């Protein structure tokens, strides 16, 4: 850096020095730096005659003395220019120190402001925006970015830049840093992704399994060690704030999911029959136990004067709110089909469901399995139609339990599908249990399924009880089998027992 701009402050010293040489006979004296005259005395006077030259090796300054005829001048001239050089040099160092102190002070104030602001930012987005905007400004660069890798989720990328870069480039830069977190500053244009001239990155210390870093890119010149240290100070502080923001985000998400699940559960339970008909010659009971993550199970029992008893149950694919909503539609359509259509055959109910709901099921890419039973008024024959519903187990009083396999594909798959009806001769003491797969697919601690054979043998033990007791007993058996293993799927069943 040139010393020329410091000369005016030391004009008097230079002129005093020059005056002595003029009094001793010199015509003019000049101060020269890198071949350029930066001061002369008398002011403005230039001599073209060869000069006697003394120089200062530290600063490179030269003192040119023109037309001086006496000998023995050199030691004195050398001493003068060396002292003058030292004074200018000391001045320059002082200026540099002062401006660096001012800059550090500015940065400390900015860092303090930033740390106050980050403490107030509780949303992840707000925090990352604040960090990128401020770190880019503090480090006097073109832009900054933040990348947060959360397990099992796509990375969060935020940037603040006059000319934003593609996310892929920023992720590539973060990946480079992640490989070698000890190297914070990158300036090799060959190793950096396109669009990045130089970048300094620093990770934010957050909880396990999360990697987050802040990067500042494209600074004229290059990032210096103080820049890197400043960024590290920012990220050390921001880590704790980011951790809080992530926890807050998780909590919000959980509340949202819990609310959705509660709503789904309410939809589901509100649609199930709240009371079951008491009829002569038949004992019927149904119940649905939603899992933590609600599925789309449903059941209904409709008894009307002078009409056969109709019951249906089913399982809409999927879980959560979508399944609960489709289940409620299916339930409504089925109920009106049972109540207001003049038919007795169960397959007609399924065909009606398929016709009315195919478009809705197709739109969302779902379907439902369903079982419909129609008990004739004599209580001697059960007509049923099974669209992919399993397991349906019939336990005759005399004989082995029988799995009533489905005859048809589920509802909501093909337009105009013709469903079949089957007839089952029944007599007093016989029991039919229609279940959703939440029963047989229950797993124990080792992951083994409860399976259909266990269901059959449990039912044989329970068959002498009432419909409600059979249901309760079976639910208990399955629940005991699962132990601490959480219930993965809804468990819904309808038990029908022929009585005297």
């Amino acid at each position: 850096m040139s010393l020329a701009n410091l000369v005016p402050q030391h004009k008097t010293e230079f002129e005093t020095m020059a005056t002595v040489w003029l009094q001793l006979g010199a015509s003019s004296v000049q101060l020269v730096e890198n071949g350029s005259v930066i001061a002369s005395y008398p002011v403005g006077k230039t001599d073209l005659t060869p000069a006697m030259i003394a120089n200062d090796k530290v600063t490179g300054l030269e003192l040119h003395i023109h037309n001086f005829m006496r000998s023995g001048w050199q030691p004195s001239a050398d001493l003068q220019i060396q002292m003058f050089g030292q004074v200018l040099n000391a001045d320059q160092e002082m200026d540099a120190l002062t401006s660096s102190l001012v800059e550090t002070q500015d940065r400390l104030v900015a860092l303090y402001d930033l740390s106050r602001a980050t403490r107030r930012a509780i949303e992840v987005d707000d925090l990352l925006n604040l960090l990128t905007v401020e770190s880019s400004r503090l480090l006097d660069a073109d832009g900054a970015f933040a990348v947060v890798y959360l397990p099992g989720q796509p990375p969060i990328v935020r940037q603040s830049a006059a000319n934003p870069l593609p996310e892929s480039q920023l992720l590539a830069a973060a990946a480079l840093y992640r490989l070698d977190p000890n190297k914070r500053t990158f300036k090799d244009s060959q190793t950096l992704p396109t669009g990045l001239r130089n970048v300094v990155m620093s990770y934010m210390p957050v909880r396990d399994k999360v990697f987050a870093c802040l990067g500042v890119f494209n600074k004229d010149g290059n990032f210096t060690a103080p820049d890197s240290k400043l960024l590290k100070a920012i990220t050390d502080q921001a880590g704790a704030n980011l951790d809080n923001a992530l926890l807050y985000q998780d909590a919000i998400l959980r509340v949202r999911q819990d609310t959705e699940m509660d709503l789904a559960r309410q939809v589901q339970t509100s649609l199930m029959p709240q009371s079951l008909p008491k009829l002569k010659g038949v004992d019927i009971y149904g119940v649905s136990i939603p899992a933590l993550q609600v599925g789309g199970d449903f059941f209904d029992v409709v008894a009307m004067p002078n009409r056969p008893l109709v019951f249906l149950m089913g399982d809409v694919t999927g879980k959560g709110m979508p399944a609960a909503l489709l289940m409620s539609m299916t339930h409504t359509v089925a109920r009106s089909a049972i109540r207001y259509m003049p038919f007795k055959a169960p397959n007609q109910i399924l065909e009606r469901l398929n016709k009315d709901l195919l478009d809705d099921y197709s739109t969302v890419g779902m379907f439902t399995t369903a079982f419909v039973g129609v008990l004739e008024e004599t209580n001697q024959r059960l007509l049923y139609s099974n669209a992919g519903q399993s397991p349906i187990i019939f336990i005759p009083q005399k004989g082995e339990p029988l799995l009533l396999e489905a005859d048809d594909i589920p509802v909501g798959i093909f337009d105009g599908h013709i469903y079949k009806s089957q007839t089952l001769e029944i007599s007093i003491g016989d029991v039919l249990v229609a279940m959703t797969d939440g029963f047989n697919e229950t797993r124990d601690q080792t992951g083994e399924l409860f399976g259909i054979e266990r269901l059959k043998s449990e039912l044989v033990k329970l068959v002498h009880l009432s419909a409600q007791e059979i249901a309760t007993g079976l639910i208990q058996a399955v629940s005991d089998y699962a132990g601490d293993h959480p219930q993965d799927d809804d468990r819904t069943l309808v038990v029908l027992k022929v009585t005297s």
Partner: protein
Amino acid sequence: MEINKKTSGSIAILQLKGRFDAHEIAPVTAWLQTQIDTGIFHVIVNLEGVNFIDSTALASLVRGLKHCREKGGDLRLCVLQPAVRVIFELTRLDKAFNILVTEEEAAASFGIS
């Protein structure tokens, strides 16, 4: 779940391995949609490596099946493990899909390549 994608003539083939459930359907659904979008309606899903399938995964296959058939093609399945075959039988979806024993048979069954 591991996913392997390949083509054989004008037939697109997806080979799946592992647990095929609600958490794994996104890439399968996206792949099926890409086939439809690019005019490929003859699709085979090889379930040889699949040891478990849930109802959401079944629904994703049914959705692919419908889309292919709407365009005059088909989605056929092959190499079902016993545990998976049982699910198809219990839900009677074995009647909705053409299910072949080997991938070669499935490819040949289209009669186009």
